[in-house]
């Protein structure tokens, strides 16, 4: 009864997508979540989905994710579902505020175009046409891809959870893995805080910011650290812009939800709090307001309805860590670095294919657990 083909530890987007994809391929899967699905980083993210990354691996993963989000939207707006996943392709606009930023974008765009991504560098005039509410401050242009988009993290998780149930998978919420048993460096089983034992030949660590803790249960040290990032959301307003707008000088990124009209956004602080701090800082609300008002002055009288904090799972090079560890059957799929939600669907599919020994067009080698963490994702 307590034996499965695969056990997934952690019910965020990666764990849910992977459980769903494995179940779809006929595997008997158990998902163990210490809180409720989405209680960690996924439920705290702002729902942006972009393909504009700087390495071929990430770009290709994200191009596949966008296809999956589209399919999910089509399926979930048909029978049996009520609200879809709030998928909307409004694009992403990265503002260039200096010649240096412009030349960085131009070189990345070359790689992106080689991967087949419809991205281009646009001058200030064109950017102002796409986003008329943008302030004519001293930006000079930007990198723009109109097939990037947005989705609702809660609805996407619900889509996966419904699918897991349909495929006969098991989800244990409010259950914590406290021990992982191995046998001659081969994975064996997990013990939960409820005292139950579940065995499987494949156990996958998708615990996001807690992935390090879970790996330590088998004596593996993962270079994944939790880092606090804050976000806020406003009341609904009339449509002011289509794309997610990203600025690095200073850091500020935000989008308008197509389905509600609310503006949601974040910035990356100079020195983010390390660890599991989840309180709002006194700096964030006034500082974010200043930064976003410099870009979109029309937001001046808009009310903020809520702000909160979540965790990025930071790896040394800003890319996820995916693969089987030195313990046979123990896998790591974690380290979203703030991109976990958007990477989730494609990573879930790719890893499921790998485990089921299916051919996959997308290589996960770039994210190997054994790689040297030398470069750094340029579009953080």
């Amino acid at each position, binding site marked *: 009864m307590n034996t499965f083909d695969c056990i997934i530890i952690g019910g965020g987007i990666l764990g849910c997508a992977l459980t769903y994809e494995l179940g779809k391929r006929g595997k008997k899967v158990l998902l163990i979540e210490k809180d409720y699905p989405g209680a960690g980083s996924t439920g705290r993210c702002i729902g942006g989905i972009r393909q504009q990354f700087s390495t071929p691996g990430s770009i290709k993963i994200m191009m596949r994710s966008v296809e999956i989000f589209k399919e999910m939207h089509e399926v979930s707006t048909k029978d049996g579902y009520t609200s879809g996943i709030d998928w909307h392709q409004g694009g992403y606009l990265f503002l260039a505020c200096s010649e240096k930023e412009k030349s960085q974008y131009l070189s990345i765009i070359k790689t992106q175009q080689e991967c087949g991504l419809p991205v281009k560098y646009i001058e200030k005039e064109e950017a102002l046409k796409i986003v008329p509410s943008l302030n004519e401050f001293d930006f000079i242009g930007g990198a723009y891809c109109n097939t990037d988009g947005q989705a609702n993290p809660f609805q996407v998780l619900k889509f996966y959870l419904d699918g897991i149930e349909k495929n006969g998978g098991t989800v244990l919420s409010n259950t914590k893995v406290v021990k992982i048993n191995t046998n001659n460096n081969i994975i064996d089983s997990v013990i939960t805080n409820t005292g139950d034992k579940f065995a499987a030949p494949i156990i996958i660590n998708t615990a996001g910011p807690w992935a390090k803790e879970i790996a330590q249960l088998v004596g593996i040290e993962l270079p994944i650290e939790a880092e606090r990032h804050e976000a806020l959301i406003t009341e609904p307003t009339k449509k002011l812009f289509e794309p997610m707008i990203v600025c690095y000088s200073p850091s500020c990124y935000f989008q308008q939800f197509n389905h509600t009209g609310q503006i949601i956004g974040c910035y990356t602080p100079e020195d983010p709090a390390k660890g599991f701090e*989840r*309180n*709002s*800082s*006194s700096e964030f*609300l*006034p500082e974010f*307001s200043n930064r976003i008002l410099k870009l979109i002055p029309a937001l001046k009288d808009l009310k*903020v309805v809520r*702000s909160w904090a979540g965790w990025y799972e930071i790896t040394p090079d800003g890319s996820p860590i995916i693969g089987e560890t030195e313990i046979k059957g123990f896998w790591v799929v974690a380290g979203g670095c703030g991109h976990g939600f958007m990477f989730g669907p494609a990573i879930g599919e790719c890893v499921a294919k790998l485990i089921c020994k299916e051919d996959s067009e997308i290589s996960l080698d770039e994210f190997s657990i054994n790689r040297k963490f030398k470069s750094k994702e340029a579009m953080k």
Partner: protein
Amino acid sequence: MDIIVIGGGPAGLSAAITAKDLGADVLLVDENHKIGGQLVKQTHKFFGAKQHWCGVRGINIANILFEQAQQKGVNVLLESSAVGIYNENNIKKVGIITSEKYMLVETKGIIIAAGAEENMLNFENNDLPGIYGAGAVQTLVNVYGIMPGKKVLMVGSGNIGLIVSYQLMQAGINVVGIIEGMPEIGGYLVHASKIRRLGIPVYVSHTIKTAIGNESVEGAIITKIDKNWQSIPDSEKQIDCDVICLAVGLTPSTELLSQADCEMKYVPELGGYTACHNELLRTSIPGVYIAGDISGIEEAVTAMLEGKIAGAACVQETLENKKADTILSQASYELAEFRAGPFGEKARTGKNKLQKQ
């Protein structure tokens, strides 16, 4: 600041005055243009013991307390919202939005007396214009002199439902009936008697099923219910009314408590979630206190006593003031005495559940 008090109702005003009396620099923040919280719409006289404002109208209590606060030198910010409580490197700050700007004010102690919000009821067409919370009706009639309609169906026979019904009749608005889900009237006998003398029908063991109307309320269908709150077949009755007034309880307004990361607990007797607190109203965060309806739904007299206790205890803790002892023991004694009767049972049970933590 030494102490920031959030909310200028009976609890917040008492807390601010008490803290100021003990020598603290106090800032009182309230989002309304008029101070007093729910007191400003309470045109009825209080009853009970003399030290608990017997014979004085709520609106006058607000005025007297506000005058006291001003004379004593409490700083008051009206039309200003406290939107965040921050505790960084052992320094507390409150984020406040005034009509002009956002500011972060440093403080040693914080007393949150943000009150409560009205409960909604689920029934068909409950979003038709003409359906109000009892507090909104009371504000329209007693504060602004505006009639919400001509024929009111009151839902709920607790003290608020009874008092608002009586006040509507005084204002020349016909209350066509009061319905109550429980088998008996919920409020004090003294209020229920007034209602009976006016001849308002009270339907106990009844609930509202549907609001009728296209553009606004034109009537309501009510139904008799059994012990399990299931409607009894063929007991439906149509009531002719243009206002449906919901007096079905309150829920503590706890957003700031959650944001401040106070340990929270769900206690049905207190109206929902509130912050765990000890008998001195201190939350799980040192220097952060609560008082009044936010700490559990009760009424104005207990709110004022809690305000006194929270004000004195917060000064005692954050400024190490020894003079607070007498106030604390006196107010705690009065509060226990006030809650000793059958009407204090819910509060007693609820508060006990919290303090067990």
